[in-house]
């Protein structure tokens, strides 16, 4: 695979990268400038010393009688160069002239003609050959080397790098953490059931965002509550006039319109009841949870349908005692079963234990099902599937919305899907223990 460089995806790695690269470059630059400056100074000092030293040494050697020269050599040796009283080693011609040679030539080149040879080897090494006034040869043997770096310098540099990495990581973490928390809070946002209160402490910007988030959450909760109250109030206040109208219609003399009026009132009544039920379902968590024998619960539900002559069957056994809110659970299953009966004329319930502390109750039918693209929308309140079959049966569009709300209040989930071979499958997953 060809390695390629990508701009990292997470903000934390991007910021870390920018900080780290920037700081490292700045650090390297300042180190480089300082090092260069030091090098220049050292070189000038060194060359100055070299010039005086070499000219003095050569002058001393020149003045000394030939037999005394040897005993002086020891005292003239320096760290990088020494003097030999012979022709030196044979070498090759220099490819470039070191600055030390230039300085030496400048100082004594006029008085002593010289040749320079390079001694090949792993370490730079060259020799300057010249003749003293009496004609005897002298060789300056030079092994140039820079002033060595202190051994602690790399340690300090590494330490600096580590410090930069640490600071960059810390700064980025401090900057990113509130953002992560905010994202999490928004993700879990459900003003009805779990209001998340963000901590309004910390740096100004963070505190500001937290305050704004909390305010937004409160506003959403207020809107939802208001919407529910409105729905509940309308539905509730309609009950009295509908009761009057129903009584009046019932007491009317028999005529063709009486039945129609009666049916219309029945539909209105149904809508009003569902409206109240939906408004209440949002606060479904008010019912007390209790230990419930699930099998007898489902049996009784199915038997009630069968006793009314409805085709509702139950398969599977859970052998479970669960902690749940029985009225809410019954309402969810009744809504799903009524739906199945409405569209398919029959319903099959199945209960299965699931992995972990949950189980699933499915309500299945062999009706027309729901188009895939509408599956997610049918659980929205007042949404009705656009097909002729549904319109003729005239639902309120609230049954599934209520079921969905209550399933949440039960700590469960409700999912709808189409069955293989046609029909709808509504699956309610329940925890065996309500938190």
């Amino acid at each position, binding site marked *: 695979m060809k390695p390629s460089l990508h701009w990292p995806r997470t903000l934390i790695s991007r910021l870390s990268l920018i900080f780290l690269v920037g700081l490292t470059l700045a650090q390297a630059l300042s180190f480089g400038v300082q090092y260069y400056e030091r090098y220049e100074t050292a070189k000038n000092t060194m060359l100055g010393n070299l010039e005086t030293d070499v000219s003095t040494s050569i002058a001393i050697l020149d003045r000394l009688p030939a037999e005394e020269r040897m005993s002086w050599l020891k005292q003239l040796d320096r760290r990088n160069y020494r003097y030999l009283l012979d022709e030196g080693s044979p070498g090759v011609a220099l490819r470039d002239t070191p600055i030390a040679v230039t300085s030496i030539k400048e100082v004594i080149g006029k008085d002593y003609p010289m040749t320079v040879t390079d001694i090949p080897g792993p370490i730079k090494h060259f020799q300057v050959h010249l003749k003293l006034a009496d004609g005897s040869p002298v060789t300056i043997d030079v092994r140039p080397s820079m002033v060595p770096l202190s051994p602690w310098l790399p340690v300090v540099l590494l330490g600096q790098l580590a410090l930069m990495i640490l600071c960059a990581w810390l700064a980025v973490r401090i900057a990113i953490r509130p953002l992560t928390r905010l994202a999490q809070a928004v993700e879990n946002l459900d003003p009805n059931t779990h209001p998340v209160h963000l901590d309004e402490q910390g740096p100004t910007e963070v505190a500001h965002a937290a305050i704004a988030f909390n305010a937004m959450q409160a506003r959403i909760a207020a809107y939802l509550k208001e919407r529910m109250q409105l729905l509940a109030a309308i539905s509730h206040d309609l009950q009295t006039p*509908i009761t009057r109208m129903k*009584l009046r219609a019932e007491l009317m003399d028999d005529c063709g319109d009486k039945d129609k009026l009666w049916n219309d009132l029945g539909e209105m009544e149904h809508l009003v*009841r569902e409206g109240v039920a939906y408004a209440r379902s949002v606060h479904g968590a008010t019912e007390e949870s209790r230990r419930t024998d699930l099998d007898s619960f489902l049996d009784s539900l199915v038997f009630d349908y069968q006793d009314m002559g409805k085709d509702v069957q139950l398969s599977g056994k859970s052998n479970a005692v669960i902690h749940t809110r029985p009225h809410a659970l019954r309402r969810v299953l009744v809504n799903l079963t009524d739906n199945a009966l409405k569209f398919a004329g029959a319903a099959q319930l199945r209960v299965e234990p699931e992995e972990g502390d949950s189980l699933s109750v499915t309500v299945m039918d062999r009706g027309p099902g729901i188009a895939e693209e509408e599956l997610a929308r049918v659980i929205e309140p007042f949404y009705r599937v656009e097909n002729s079959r549904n319109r003729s049966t005239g639902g309120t569009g609230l049954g599934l919305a209520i079921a969905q709300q209550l399933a949440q209040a039960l700590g469960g989930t409700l999912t709808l899907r189409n069955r293989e071979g046609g029909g709808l499958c509504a699956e309610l997953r329940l925890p065996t223990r309500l938190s």
Partner: protein
Amino acid sequence: MEHVDHILIVDDDREIREMVGNYLKKNGLRTTVVADGRQMRSFLEATPVDLIVLDIMMPGDDGLVLCRDIRAGKHKATPVLMLTACNDETDRIIGLEMGADDYLVKPFAARELLARINAVLRRTRMLPPNLVVTETGRWLGFGRWRLDTSARHLLDEDGTMVALSGAEYRLLRVFLDHPQRVLNRDQLLNLTQGRDADLFDRSIDLLVSRLRQRLLDDAREPAYIKTVRSEGYVFSLPVQVLGAPA
């Protein structure tokens, strides 16, 4: 002269109470309509009635308060039928806990109200006086079970709820209302159908076996509902009226 049942209707909506009153009158009952709790109390001072139809949502004292007053006063034996405005289980249970004998959700049909009134009257007259369900009599205890007559489910000794279908509950109530008496199939069928007019075409035998399953009663050696050969069934344990469970 034959006794004509006197029904007192308490509802703050004038049209509703008058239409209901007229309908019941047309169907052979004597009716009086009042608008609120104050009028109800002053009427009951002078005239005892056979049944009170009580609206829950009323200005002033609401139906629940009035129902509790009735149960605490000298008319405590008078059956009460509640009219609730909300189709909510908790309202129903609170209403029944306050001592109402039955409830009906608004908007209701007049003929349904009539049927409920007749059913309540028939039932309260049929119950042995020691088993009239009063404020403290929500719970009936037998063997290892308690029956919650408001919420209509069983509780075992751990407090686990065991649900009953409508028909199962009605049959169990019949047995508990007539403990240790042999009841034949016709009697059981009549008494079971007495309360609600639901379609009921299960045979009594099937229903008894379902109820035995619910009570975890061994069909071969039943401890609760025993078969009396060629006669019917008997509920063989004593039944106690209990206070609220601890």
